[in-house]
Each structure stands twice: as structure tokens, then as C-alpha cells.
């Protein structure tokens, strides 16, 4: 029997919601391939563990990394494998709603829906991530009030103002939490002369990274390869250093939130002062980020209680009420 699906195709993580069931899959958006034959060797968590640890003939990639589809063929294969794993075949033919980064182009959108149809979906439609996030975070978007969502993912940050079930203003940038990892990697290489992998950089970010000074900060021991000697080496990294290293990324994320605020009509703008803005996405969990955005915008920032699931929950809600909500698909609105 066909069970309709909602998919959050994130730059870092992919989640799948099955109608009537809930979340049935949650794993990194990574695929590992044999470089020579092009064969898929692993997906999800298994492929994620290979990042930076593969022999030459294996390559582990995040096809949506920068909020854009760099390789259509690999993306299509990832979508097909994903649907197969949750039981989709040419015989079940479910309806599928997919959330994609808002910044992707018309051509990329078509590639995603075509891939889902070819994998067996009877119908495939897209919905903007911040819209889905607002539904999933339980904001009162059915009312004529200004609701603001900030979704900070791996490769993208998207801010939207939503009222009466529609997007009033949207600002999407291809800057996210992956760029924080890269900034940490660059800093450690430049200032301490050691090379670290992206997964180590991510661990440092989660362990001691912050966007604003916070209480009880610790140093971290960082292990990498000494660029001069080529030998393994450990150095100490302070939270101040990490803050300095990631400052450019943080300020461009904050700047995009401010641009979105400035696009909102004044009537809705005043609502934010009372209602606040809602922060979702893994990148939003960075220590001090909510405080930093609040300080620079003078608008209260609230953390969603389902930061990592809000998008797939919102899309799941749309699949539960498909007939009533099909007007919300990308392209359905004028």
C-alpha cells in the first residue's frame, strides 16, 4: 500500500516522515561512491563515517552541500536510494512532498521532482524549507500576524516572514554551519600550522564554538597533522580563538537576518517585537548565536523545541492534509 511521504532534503541531514506514522528516517545527506565504477557503496550514517577517511578509490560526498545541486546524477541516485529504503517502488506510487533549500534554481527543482517521480512517486511537489519549518515549529501562521523563522543548516541559512499561510519575505544565503567548520579548519592551519579534517572541525565547533561570549568556557585539545613535520600533533584551542575564526561567517548570517527584517512590511515588523523570531536548524544550536542575533537586531529570539525536526514535521503536516494544503507548493502560488 502506498504511504505518502514528506522529505527534508537538507544539506547536512535528510529526514523522512511517513503519513500516519511519523519520522521513519533521519541520517546524514552523504553518499559514498566508487570513484572508478561510479557504484554506490554506502549512504547515510555509514557514508558519513567515511568522510575524510577513504582510500583513493572511494569518495564520500554531500551532494547538496552548498545549498545547490552540483551533481544532478548523484543527487538523483541519492533520492532513489532514499525512497527505496523507505519502501517506495513502482507498485506503491506514493505522493511525495520534498523540502529543498529555497536558493536552488528552477532547473535544480525540476531535477529533484523528476528524480522522485522516476523513483516511483506518483506525484512530487516542493515546499520552501522556512515555510515547512514554521508549520513544524507550531507558529500561528494561520493568523494575519508576522511570524519570523530563521533556519540555519549546514550549507544554507534561510530567514522568512510568514503570515496567513504565505511567505511575505524571504532571504536565503548559501552560508551555514559547514562554513563555520571550514573557518575553524583554516584558522588552525594558519595559526597553529596543523591540518585537521572537516569532522574534527565540526567537533570543535560543537564542543567549544560560540557566536557570543558565554559562561563557563573551556579550551579544547585539537589533534591533527603538523604541516611542517608531517607528524600527528596536539594543540590547545581557546573559545576566543574560535570566535575570532568564525566571526566572518557569523556576521554574514546575522546580516541576512537583518536584510529579511528590513523586507517585512511595517505592520508585521512590529509583531516581531512582541512575538520574537524563531530559530531552527542544527546551525542555530551554536552557543551564543540566539543572543548574538537578539543583540544585533533588538528583536527577541526564541529557540524552537524541535530545531532539527521542524522542517520535516511541517512537510509531514502538509502530506497529512494534502488536498487542503496543495496550494502551498512551490509554483502553485502566483
Amino acid at each position, binding site marked *: 500500500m502506498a504511504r505518502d511521504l514528506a522529505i527534508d532534503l537538507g544539506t547536512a541531514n535528510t529526514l523522512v516522515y511517513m503519513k500516519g506514522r511519523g519520522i521513519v528516517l533521519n541520517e546524514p545527506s552523504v553518499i559514498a561512491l566508487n570513484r572508478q565504477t561510479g557504484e554506490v557503496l554506502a549512504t547515510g550514517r555509514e557514508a558519513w563515517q567515511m568522510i575524510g577517511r577513504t582510500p583513493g578509490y572511494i569518495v564520500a560526498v554531500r551532494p547538496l552541500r552548498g545549498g545547490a545541486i552540483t551533481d544532478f546524477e548523484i543527487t538523483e541516485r541519492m533520492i532513489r536510494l532514499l525512497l527505496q529504503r523507505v519502501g517506495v517502488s513502482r507498485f506503491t506510487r506514493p505522493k511525495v512532498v520534498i523540502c529543498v533549500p529555497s536558493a536552488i534554481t528552477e532547473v535544480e527543482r525540476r531535477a529533484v521532482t523528476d528524480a522522485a517521480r522516476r523513483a516511483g512517486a506518483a506525484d512530487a511537489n516542493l515546499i520552501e524549507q522556512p515555510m515547512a519549518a514554521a508549520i*513544524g515549529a507550531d507558529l500561528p501562521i494561520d493568523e494575519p500576524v508576522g511570524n519570523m523563522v530563521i533556519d540555519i543548516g549546514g550549507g544554507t541559512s534561510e530567514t522568512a516572514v510568514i503570515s496567513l499561510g504565505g511567505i511575505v519575505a524571504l532571504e536565503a544565503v548559501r552560508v551555514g554551519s559547514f562554513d563555520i567548520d571550514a573557518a575553524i579548519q583554516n584558522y588552525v592551519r594558519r595559526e597553529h600550522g596543523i591540518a585537521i579534517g572537516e569532522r574534527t572541525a565540526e567537533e570543535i565547533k560543537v564542543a567549544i564554538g560560540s557566536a557570543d561570549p558565554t559562561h563557563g568556557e573551556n579550551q579544547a585539545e585539537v589533534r591533527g597533522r603538523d604541516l611542517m613535520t608531517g607528524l600527528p600533533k596536539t594543540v590547545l584551542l581557546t573559545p576566543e580563538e574560535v570566535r575570532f575564526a568564525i566571526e566572518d561567517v557569523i556576521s554574514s548570517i546575522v546580516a541576512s537576518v537583518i536584510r529579511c527584517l528590513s523586507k517585512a512590511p511595517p505592520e508585521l515588523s512590529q509583531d516581531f517585537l512582541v512575538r520574537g523570531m524563531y530559530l531552527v536548524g542544527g546551525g542555530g544550536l551554536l552557543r551564543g548565536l540566539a543572543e548574538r542575533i537578539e543583540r544585533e537586531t533588538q528583536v527577541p529570539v526564541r529557540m524552537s523545541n524541535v530545531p532539527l525536526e521542524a522542517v520535516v514535521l511541517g512537510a509531514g503536516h502538509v502530506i497529512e492534509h494534502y488536498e487542503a494544503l496543495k496550494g502551498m507548493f512551490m509554483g502553485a502560488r502566483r
Partner: protein
Amino acid sequence: MVVAVILGIALRGRSEEDGVDSFRRQIDALSSEARKPTVERVKSAERNADDADSSTS
């Protein structure tokens, strides 16, 4: 001719009402009340996952 005009008016009237109806349905489906079951489903899934975690440890 006349038939076509009348038909045209009838269709237009109906499509305008359709607009009101579908907008209302959309807004109703987005209410906090309507969203409760979806959100609950995830909370219960999380509880199950927690249970599974604790049973394995």
C-alpha cells in the same frame, strides 16, 4: 452566444467561491489545532526511541 456568456458568468461565480473555500480550508488545516496530531506523532516516536535506547543500555 448567449449560452456561452451565461456559462461564462456561472463558471466565474463558481471559481470565485472556490477560491474562498480553498483558502478557508488551507487556513483551517494550518491551525494549531489541526497541527497537533502531526506534532504528537513525533513526540511519541521520540519517546519510543528513548525507550529503545534505555532498553539496550
